[in-house]
């Protein structure tokens, strides 16, 4: 893999590992509107699936910062792998005989 890609991947990992614990805890636009309109309860307890790392906090880790950091690194690595794999999968299809 070329150097610029590796550098950008490193940037992503640094962001995920070291910036994410300092993210603003305030609700995002949608959450804020939902709260202000009293609509939040409509989503309470309605989760369709149980995710392994809910709310970006690695379970079983006391420090919230470390739990978030780990979740960030895990997610970044998984996303890289899946997107790369998807790219490979898609580009391989063009070699089908016409």
């Amino acid at each position: 893999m070329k150097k610029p890609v590796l550098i950008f991947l490193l940037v992503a990992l640094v962001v995920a590992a070291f910036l994410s614990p300092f993210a603003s805890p305030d609700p995002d636009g949608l959450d804020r509107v939902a709260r202000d309109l009293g609509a939040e309860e409509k989503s309470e307890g309605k989760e369709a699936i149980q995710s392994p790392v809910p709310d970006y906090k690695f379970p079983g880790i006391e420090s919230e910062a470390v739990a978030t950091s780990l979740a960030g690194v895990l997610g970044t690595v998984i996303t890289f792998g899946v997107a790369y794999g998807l790219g490979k999968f898609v580009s391989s299809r063009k070699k089908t005989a016409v």
Partner: protein
Amino acid sequence: MHIPDGFLDARTAIATYALSAGALGYSIKKTKGELSDRQIPTMGVLAAFIFAAQMVNFPIFGGTSGHLLGAALATILLGPWCSALIISTVLIIQCLFFQDGGLTALGGNIFNMAIVGTLVALGIYQLITRLAPGGKGEVIGVFTAAWASVVASAFFATMELALSGTFPFKIALGAMLVWHVLIGIGEGLITSVAVSFVRKMGFGGVHQQGKAGSEVL
């Protein structure tokens, strides 16, 4: 802007799932003929960066935060088809692994962020860079495309939530637009920096100025 489970009614969830599936199927078809080997690692790393950046909420004001969406970034650098796939990948991973965005709302979230976000970014970027070719147009085009993509996504999300009876349309639209007009500024700034950075680094296969997928439209 990730819609949780319980906010969309069945009809809206199914409709947006169908739209998203169709759009993604089409995106896969379009990338088939076009994705060069050099672009594959770029696709991976852009998706990774967008995932990471989406975790870093920045405060706007009044106790509300925003975060990068990334559709404009992906569209400008790799074109709309790749962008749709990249943003969808991020959203799916966020939903399945991190409970960010409901599984029943995934169709809606993909439609709003990966499809609408991408198309609006593409349209605005191409319009501005054609009207104002050169460096200035690029700067204005990148920022505005990013800003508009956020506002447009928010608009469609609001529509779905109103159609589902979760939000009253007029009140929700006003509020959603106010927040996302501001969040869009953050998107514009981050996207501008990121696009400059990637172009300077000389990445494999990214579109040059003013050329985000222009060959496919």
